[in-house]
């Protein structure tokens, strides 16, 4: 069985799955239960300035009946700070092999930070995560995202914390910025030991069509909250890999704790491949309970075994070198779609997607004959409808290899994108711009170039 244990800037845990700083880590009682379920670590719900919460706090977006996004307006811990500190100490004592990390957020002055850092260190916690990401409630008070969005503040506070602390400092980044690399650089400059991202995304999750109220509805009002869950995963993967590839981060070899929509072991594996060396989870636990970690561990372990990989650490960042600019993609790489008639269920979703919105290169064929959609009005019944139904067939000479049909096909493995020789030497837009700049600037030159190398777009 593959070794799942990690060492994250000195913080050890038996597996890479940590509960993120959020409602699931609100109390010692909860985290005890979570550790019993198998979580490798937990980032305590942020402690710091005094707060009061509201109801309602959550809104969701559902697709086909399943929740794909969860939005919240809950603040940092509303339990008195000394209770949190006492429970952190108790949990760390009870679970010495698990990662216990305290998340903190206080006013932006050195004394406030010095005080809380001292208090956290006294608990025996393994590390500190600086919450620079909370997008609502705290940011209006000059904390959370208000810090994370200004690189200078981020650097300054990180430097204060480093000065007062002896345990690892993780800076948690907000995605609500235009260039996350600037935030990452500031954290590096401030002396962070590690980074974590993404925090939640600013969002208004919905409007109630009965009452016109926002969701969540707080006494008739609503506002932006923090968006999380499976829908944010692609955004998180992008931002995390961008941070991982930021030169200063690479040079400082800062590990990254990745989060944002990790619902299962496959999501986890993708985060690891794109540079995460620990993983944080919240929404999956909020929707289904702590038990979700069991299959995260089991699935990841089985997958590593199948791949013949001995340790989770071997796959960290393995796919990062594949991240490239558009300008470096090989313009001569060509694929075409092929539909396997044996597994095709004739739903025609590929046909309509291609014909309405792509390159009109899928035909409906009955034998060799191309037929139009539709049927004789007098036809009916199962046998007539199914026996005469045509199959979608790709006209490969016209297929641009867009991959849409493959994506919309409901049958796994039915449509494959097959690499075909383009007959052209590999080249990229960057090369083309350097070698034949006129082709990239003038349509007439582009037309001549296409004719010359044999690119025909109908």
């Amino acid at each position, binding site marked *: 069985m593959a070794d799942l244990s990690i060492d994250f800037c000195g913080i050890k845990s038996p597996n890479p799955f940590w509960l993120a700083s959020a409602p699931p880590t609100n109390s010692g009682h909860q985290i005890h239960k979570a550790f019993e379920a198998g979580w490798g670590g937990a980032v305590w719900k942020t402690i710091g300035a005094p707060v009061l919460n509201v109801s309602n706090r959550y809104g969701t977006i559902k697709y*086909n*009946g399943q929740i794909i996004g969860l939005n919240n307006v809950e603040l940092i811990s509303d339990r008195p700070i000394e209770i949190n500190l006492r429970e952190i100490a108790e949990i760390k004592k009870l679970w010495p092999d698990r990662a216990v990390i305290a998340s903190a957020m206080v006013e932006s002055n050195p004394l406030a930070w010095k005080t809380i850092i001292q208090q956290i260190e006294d608990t025996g916690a393994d590390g500190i995560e600086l919450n620079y990401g909370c997008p609502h409630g705290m940011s209006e008070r000059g904390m959370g995202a208000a810090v994370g969005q200004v690189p200078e503040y981020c650097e300054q506070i990180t430097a204060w914390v480093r000065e007062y602390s002896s345990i690892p400092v993780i800076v948690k980044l907000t995605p609500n910025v235009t260039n996350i690399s600037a935030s990452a650089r500031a954290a590096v400059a401030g002396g962070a030991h590690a980074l974590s991202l993404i925090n939640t995304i600013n969002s208004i999750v919905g409007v109630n069509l009965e009452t016109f109220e926002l969701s969540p509805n707080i006494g008739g009002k609503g506002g932006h909250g923090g968006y999380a869950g499976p829908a944010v995963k692609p955004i998180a993967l992008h931002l995390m890999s961008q941070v991982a590839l930021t030169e200063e981060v690479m040079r400082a070899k800062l590990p990254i704790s990745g989060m944002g929509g990790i619902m299962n072991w496959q999501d986890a594996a993708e985060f690891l491949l794109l540079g995460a060396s620990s993983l944080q989870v919240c929404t999956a636990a909020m929707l289904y309970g702590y038990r979700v970690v069991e299959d995260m561990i089991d699935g990841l372990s089985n997958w590593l075994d199948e791949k013949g990989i001995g340790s989770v650490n071997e796959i960290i960042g393995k796919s990062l070198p594949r991240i490239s600019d558009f300008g470096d993609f090989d313009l001569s790489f060509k694929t075409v779609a092929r539909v396997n008639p044996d597994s095709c*269920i*004739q*739903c*025609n*979703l590929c*046909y*309509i997607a291609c014909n309405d919105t792509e390159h009109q290169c899928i035909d*409906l064929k009955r034998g060799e004959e191309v037929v139009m*959609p*539709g*049927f004789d*009005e*007098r*036809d*009916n*019944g*199962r046998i*007539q*409808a*199914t026996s005469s*139904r045509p199959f979608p067939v790709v006209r490969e000479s016209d297929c641009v290899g867009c991959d849409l049909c493959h994506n919309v096909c*409901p049958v796994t493995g039915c449509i494959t994108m097959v690499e075909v020789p383009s007959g052209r030497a590999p080249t990229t837009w960057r090369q083309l711009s350097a070698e034949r700049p006129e082709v990239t600037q003038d349509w007439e030159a582009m037309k001549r170039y296409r004719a010359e190398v044999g690119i025909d777009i109908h």
Partner: protein
Amino acid sequence: MLTLPTSALSAESLEQNFQEVLPALSKREASIEANRCLFCYDAPCTHACPTHIDIPGFIKKIARDNVKGSARVILESNFLGSTCARVCPVEELCEGACVLGSDHKPIEIGRLQRYSTDFVLEKKLDLFKPAPSTGKKVVVIGAGPAGLSCAAELAKLGHAVTILERKPLAGGLSTYGIVVFREPVQVSLAEVEMVERLGVNIKTGVTVGVDVTLESLTSDYDAVFLSVGLGTVPSLGIPGENLLGVVDGIKFIEDTKTQAYSSIPVGKHVCVIGAGNTAIDAATIARRLGAESVTMVYRRSASEMTAYNFEFEFAKKEGIEYRFLSNPVAVRGTDSVTGLECVKMRLGAPDSSGRPRPEAIPDSNFVLECDMVISAIGQEKHQSLAQQLNLETKNGYIVTDAHNQTSRPGIYAGGDCVRVTGDASTVMAVQDGKIAARGIHAQMLEGMVSAND
């Protein structure tokens, strides 16, 4: 006077036995099922539906909680969508063609359709308005599914439609002939009301040829649509068929639709002659009324049955027994039925229907003891109307063209009176009515154009 006893079951258990077999889908169930639909393009379910309802279209509207819009999509193609949702042989039509059927479970299209159409029936929503009056008048003879469908389509187009119905209630077989646990009477009557709210004038208790002459109809109206269905079960032609306890299957079903279950006579041991859908319906009703044993007697074998396979399976689950290759030769008894004498049969060479001809095995007679015999061996055709109008017929069915016009211009026909048994179903009748309405409309408009010239 000698009568058969009525059911020994309590009123409550009878009520329970005649509840709809499939319960209505809850909003949650409908949403989950609707979300399973792949939204196929040029979908095979739509192709398979004789009325070609845009099925993925209406299902996606359920998924998006636009139930009214969903019902509109259904009723646009099939005004009797609520009946069809219940009685269609979906395995042979839409659901049988569902692309998910090959390696998974087809979408429950019938039940989803019922979910949407019941919504508008219960709320009495009118989703269609008649177009401005064209001044044209059409008479429809027979208020069954074909007639109602034709009338609704014509009314939507602005024509004045009168339906003449012989029975006290409109709805045809939906009202009188579909077993209650497949379709309650109220559903059929709610559809009738929806047709009436479009401005269609339905006159019940009117027999054409008795209360009103055919000639007056052809002269008073711009077009005629015949949807007269079929008649009673033909006589068995065997000794003893007039004994007390021998009943007509169609009448037996009708009683359960119009009378209190506790007042309907039913035997303890029942034999049903025939193996079509009506025979199975009569058999299941007898069982649910409390018959201890119900035996279906059919002169051919299981593979020649005309009943739908799902009906056959349903009957088996209901505890109904089958005697195949058995042909009744006499009903035994003095005043009332005591048994059904049959002769054993074997299958010979194919007959004109292509099915092997059953032949009697000499000296193989046997008696099935019973106190009730239900005859469901098909229905007679209403030949007289066709004859009076001098319409071309084939095997007793009225012959029509692609527009459902009969051999006589201006007279159209549809439903069971044009359709050879086996092909006949409510949904086919609805489509017949639709096609005829289109033909009538085109013909009358042509008349209007030439009149304006």
